[in-house]
Structures are given as structure tokens and as C-alpha cells.
């Protein structure tokens, strides 16, 4: 379908594409979909329990983007808006998250589980199939941990963008991300023991 798009559409920024979609420009909308569908699908899959729900969320996301493009306010980050729409769509399918009433694990304990104080951290990424092992460790995390890593480390959203998507303060976002990364390292540690 790319060959049907004009150069101006292919080179437009996301905010411009959303603005043009809001005025009914199907080519701009198509470009936006093609640009972000894989990322939105991955993000949705990180929030849902199965592929079918993720696919449903993917479709709902872009339908909602088409319908509500006019509500997008340009100065905001287009990607954070898009991921917010995707989050809302995905969480319609996902089960309500369990509120964790337990005390959060002390950072020192989490660090120790992640390999602080041992010689093994160097070994975490040694060997073959790093991509597969990282993906598997990510899949083993709780949804909250996985989500923040997907947004910040995989999709590359800024701290401000990710905190906007998640409805967290920047400091809360940073804390969640740090703990999620440590749990990921702990998961990798357990795998090589």
C-alpha cells in the first residue's frame, strides 16, 4: 500500500498525520497505522493474556484513533497519545489487575536477587540467543513490570511520555522502571543458575 502514498504523507510527522486523519485524510491514517501497528500490537500483547485479545485491542486502538483524532492536541506527544489509546483498548480485554497489598520489596533485596554482590551479573547476557532469553524473561514478568519496560526500553518513550501513558508521576515511573529492570535481571539470574 506504501506505493499509493505520496511523499508528503510518508515524510509527515505523527502529529501531522493525526491532524490530517482528523480531517478525513485516509492516506494519512493509513500511513499512521502502518508506522505504528507492530509497536501497538506488541504493547497490547504485553497487557493482554493472549494473542486474540491483543489483536482485538490492536483493531480497537486504530478504530479509536480514527474516530477521536480530532481530540488529539498537537503539543502533546503523538506517541504517548497513541499508546494511551492502545492501553485503554487493551485493558478492556485484560482482567482487572490485582492490587498488591504486600509491602514492596526493599530495593536492596531486589538488587541482591538481580545479582548485586555476586560475580554472575557479567554472565547474564553471555551465550547465544540473547534476544530470545530477554524476550522470555520479559514474558515472565508481571504485567506492570513488563509494560513499563516495553514503553521505556523497547519503544523508547521518554520518561514524560511513559508517565503520561501510565498516569504516574515521573518519580513513580522511574521507580517502577528501575524495579522492573531489576526483576528482569533477577529472572535472567534464575535462568542461568
Amino acid at each position: 500500500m506504501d506505493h499509493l502514498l505520496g511523499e508528503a504523507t510518508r515524510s509527515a510527522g505523527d502529529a501531522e498525520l493525526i491532524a490530517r486523519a482528523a480531517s478525513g485524510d485516509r492516506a494519512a491514517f493509513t500511513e499512521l497505522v502502518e508506522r505504528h501497528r507492530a509497536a501497538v500490537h506488541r504493547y497490547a500483547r504485553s497487557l493482554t493474556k493472549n494473542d486474540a485479545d491483543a489483536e482485538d485491542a490492536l483493531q480497537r486502538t486504530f478504530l479509536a484513533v480514527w474516530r477521536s483524532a480530532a481530540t488529539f492536541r498537537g503539543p502533546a506527544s503523538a506517541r504517548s497519545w497513541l499508546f494511551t489509546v492502545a492501553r485503554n483498548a487493551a485493558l478492556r480485554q485484560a482482567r482487572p489487575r490485582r492490587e498488591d497489598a504486600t509491602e514492596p520489596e526493599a530495593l536492596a533485596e531486589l538488587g541482591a536477587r538481580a545479582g548485586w554482590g555476586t560475580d554472575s551479573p557479567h554472565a547474564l547476557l553471555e551465550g547465544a540467543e540473547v534476544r530470545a532469553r530477554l524476550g522470555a524473561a520479559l514474558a515472565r514478568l508481571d504485567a506492570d513490570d513488563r509494560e513499563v519496560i516495553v514503553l521505556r526500553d523497547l519503544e523508547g518513550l521518554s520518561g514524560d511520555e511513559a508517565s503520561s501513558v501510565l498516569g504516574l508521576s515521573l518519580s513513580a515511573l522511574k521507580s517502577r522502571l528501575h524495579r522492573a529492570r531489576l526483576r528482569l535481571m533477577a529472572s535472567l539470574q534464575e535462568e542461568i543458575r
Partner: protein
Amino acid sequence: MKLDREVAGLTCARVLEHLPDFIDGRLAPAERASVEAHLAGCDVCERFGGSYGAVVAALRRELGTPEPLSRDVEQRLAQALGAPASDDP
């Protein structure tokens, strides 16, 4: 090992807290200098900080690009969006 060990005026616990901002280059110059001084004198934190940074870099390098949609998913998305101005399909 205890995280309350102090090296260059900074405990290991504080270094652990600062790691994300340190690897992102977001610490103020004075804080950055303190962390660097600690790392220079603390093998445990130097080793762990290096591992932490390597894992974050590997996430970005290895998983930063999402897998393309399968042909089937792509086609069903296109069908769902075929008449996006209408109500739910």
C-alpha cells in the same frame, strides 16, 4: 555483602538508587561525579552497574524493533479498518 558500605562518600544503596539516571546521563554533574568516584572504588557496584547498563542496552538493541505483524493479523486489521468512519465492525 551489605549495601550500606560507603565508598567516596556514597553508600552502595544510594548508587543502586541512582543507577537509572546514571546510565541515562541524567544526574547532575556533582551527583554523577560522586557515583563515578564510588564506582571507581567499589568493584561490586562497578560490576553490577555495568551489568545493569548492559541489560538495558541489550533490551533496546535486541528488542527495540517489534516483529512485523503476521500476514493474517495484518489482513484482519485492514479489514477492520476498511470503513473506519462507520460504527464497530
